[in-house]
């Protein structure tokens, strides 16, 4: 068999198989998850103590999901949430990337900020909630603030780490070729750390998406978190589970888009000499 793998035909035949392997396993994973979900629903439905929650099972959930998708409700509830996450991530990036570059480049600034930033990073973003509510006039602003607080740290630390990994020879070469500070930033530093920034954003998105739902439990009357709370209050468990699925699908998609962007901007070659 090993001899066969070395023949040209085997080499030509193998790559497509390997390319299909990833998606095939992905589908299988989803199938297993669905099976477990169905099994859980079956157990719940047959247990006299739990049977009130039978609507969490796949069939009622998917039916409710179909309803909110066809009625367009899904867009009404996810629109405000996406806006809040986008605004929070955007503000976090606008503050975190420059701060990360400064911290990566300037030694004393790094030493000065390290302890306070690590301290602030470890505070759960949701613990700022009462303060955010007092400080900001609108619920929306408070939620954007909470997401920003959650998202800034991964962006800042990832950017700073990327800047510190920049080959000093690149900076020397650029300076030698007559680069001014603006060139240095846009031609050398930012392209060199593009992947680090995107990786930070991807991590930040994960945290932001987690923080979003509990933040939306408060005050606001729109968004996915509100939809969940609303469904709970009206005992519409199928709808509640459908919103959970929507949250998962959107989160997965956004993360996938960031992964594609990282792949696009990644200049590191696995086979580089």
């Amino acid at each position, binding site marked *: 068999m090993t001899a066969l793998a070395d023949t040209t035909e085997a080499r030509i035949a193998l790559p497509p198989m390997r390319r299909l392997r990833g998606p095939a396993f992905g589908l299988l994973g989803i199938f297993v998850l669905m099976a477990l979900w169905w099994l859980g629903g079956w157990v719940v439905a047959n247990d006299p103590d739990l049977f009130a929650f039978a609507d969490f099972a796949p069939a009622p959930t998917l039916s409710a999901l179909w309803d909110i998708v066809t009625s367009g409700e899904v867009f009404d509830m996810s629109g405000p949430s996406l806006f809040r996450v986008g605004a929070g991530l955007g503000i976090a990036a606008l503050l975190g990337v420059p701060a990360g570059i400064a911290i990566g480049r300037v030694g004393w600034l790094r030493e000065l900020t390290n302890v306070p930033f690590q301290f602030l990073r470890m505070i759960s973003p949701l613990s700022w909630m009462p303060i955010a509510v007092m400080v900001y006039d609108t619920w929306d602003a408070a939620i954007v603030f909470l997401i920003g607080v959650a998202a800034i740290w991964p962006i800042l630390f990832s950017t700073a780490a990327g800047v510190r990994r920049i080959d000093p*020879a690149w900076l020397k*070469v650029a300076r*030698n070729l007559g680069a*001014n500070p603006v*060139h240095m930033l846009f031609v050398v530093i930012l392209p060199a750390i593009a992947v680090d920034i995107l990786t930070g954003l991807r991590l930040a998105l994960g945290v932001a998406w987690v923080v979003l739902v509990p933040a939306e439990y408060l005050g606001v009357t729109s968004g996915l978190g509100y939809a969940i709370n609303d469904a709970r209050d009206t005992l519409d468990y199928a709808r509640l589970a459908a919103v959970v699925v929507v949250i998962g699908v959107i989160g997965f998609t956004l993360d996938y888009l960031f992964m594609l962007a990282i792949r696009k901007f990644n*200049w*590191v070659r696995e086979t*580089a*000499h």
Partner: protein
Amino acid sequence: MFAAAKDFQMMLEKAMFSGAEKLQGLARPRRKHRTAVAGAHIAVMGLSHTYRRSDGPVLEDISFQVEPGEVVALLGRSGCGKSTLLHMLSGLTLPSQGEVVINGNTVRGPSNRWVMMFQAPSLFPWMTVAQNAALGLRFARRNEEIARRVPEVLDLVDLAAFADRNAQDLSGGQQQRVALARSLATRPEMLLLDEPFSALDAFTRRALQRDVRKIAHNLGLTLVIVTHDVSEAVRMADRVLVLDANPGRIAQDTVIDLDDDEREGGCDRFNAEHVRLMEIYTAVAHGAADETDDTPEKA
């Protein structure tokens, strides 16, 4: 504060530029090729340097001149300050005493009219070969020259076919050729080479030594090469300054009188020059060793 520094730098560049234009104006009628630029004249005067937080000077009282178009090698053991000296010629480091004067102007910072090449090619891996070669022009805001000039310099280093390839696809020697093209794109008057071939295999190294010398000669560039390799000095340099260590001083200033064919090696005259330079180098190195063994006689 930034703005003031930038203004000052612009003023400085402007002053330097007018000097260059005068010089090019003089040189143009004599030369036929449009690509030919007069090489820089270097005068190093009473240069000494002591690094912060170090006891003694790394360089002491260095003075020499380099004629336009001349190829000079700075030969010495590691730690003799030859690389520091080259950084000072480029303006990347400023000496604590004395000055470097290029074409009549004191060097106060880097300029794209003299370019340094380092041991590592340090190409930007997210760019193509052509984009790398265009960097100097881009930084100098001479974007309109890129389309014409970049193919020219890539052709000069025999890499025209690789223009659109990623820099990481190239071999070490090819990458160093791109670095050379990148250095030449802005039409500098001088190239400063800091052991640029020492990481390459012997075959590639020889080819590049020959080509760099030829290209510099054809363009009329002044070339200063830092090396610890005697044979590299013999192959490339018209003149060799042998440096002493602790502190770095010019111990010998000797002319290598060979024509381009003889520099390929394998002939008696090459071997004789190699032996002669090796003897000087060894004598200087031993002298330095003796000095460090005994108590140095300091005035």
